[in-house]
């Protein structure tokens, strides 16, 4: 049987990879890819705690499903913003989208 720690360390590593992507990539679409990795890492934790806690209590899986819905909403709005910015400014590099910086 796999101990709980393996899942938690796996999720922590995946979360850190996503964090690195968010902080280091220049392309706005690549930053959203990093956010997806972080959301998946959180979901692994939720599913693992459901399985290793009380299986009768479905709160962990319900929470993971809500995270799915929020991730879909976040991606649709985020990519629409990127496409809109690309159309107006002709760039998707996050450093160059600085209209609100002065």
């Amino acid at each position, binding site marked *: *049987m*796999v*101990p*709980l*720690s*393996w*899942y*938690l*360390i*796996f999720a*922590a*590593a*995946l*979360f*850190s*990879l996503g*964090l*690195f992507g968010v*902080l*280091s*990539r*220049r*392309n706005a*679409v*690549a930053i959203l*890819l990093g956010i*997806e*990795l972080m959301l998946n890492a959180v*979901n*692994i934790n939720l*599913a693992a705690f459901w*399985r*290793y806690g009380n*299986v*009768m209590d479905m*709160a962990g*899986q*319900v929470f*993971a*499903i*809500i995270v*799915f*819905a*929020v991730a*879909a*909403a*976040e*991606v*649709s*709005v985020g*990519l*629409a913003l*990127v*496409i*809109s910015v*690309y159309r107006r400014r002709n*760039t*998707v*590099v*996050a450093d160059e989208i600085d209209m609100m910086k002065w």
Partner: protein
Amino acid sequence: MTGEQIVFLVVALFTLGSGFMVVTTRNLVHAALWLVSTLFGVAVTYAVLDAAFLAVVQVVVYIGAIAILFIFAVMLTRKDVRDQGPQMNKNWWFGALLAVMTFGGLYFLLQGWSGLSKTAAAIPAGFDAVAELGNELVSPAAYVLPFEVASVLLVAALVGAVYVAFNPRSGK
């Protein structure tokens, strides 16, 4: 080492390797395709955890919808896909340091927790997790309110996405 542990290790290494490629590949179409294999690895992890419904939803929603949406977005912003110059910003080493420190901090926190080496109890005979999940999602005594709020959020987000991406100049 039992068979389950070997399956877990193979899947975890595959997922982390794909995740590493997602954040380091230069070509964004390739990064989106690596994201598909990462998401598939996570779906297998759900299956190993006996969360069958989550595994199916992961494949249908994440791989079928979100990853495809990413590929569309990369193609619509095509000019910058192979843009010249570095794919990482100049502070990438700081991001890497912060990511390593986050992992180290989480690892350190986990080491101090007593429930860490816990193993899962067997699922009781006759317990159908998918049926129970469906009941709880629509039961007023459980999670019907978050469920409905999530659906309203999704509708609002999709309407907002259409509005934001609408091109007023072409009028379509």
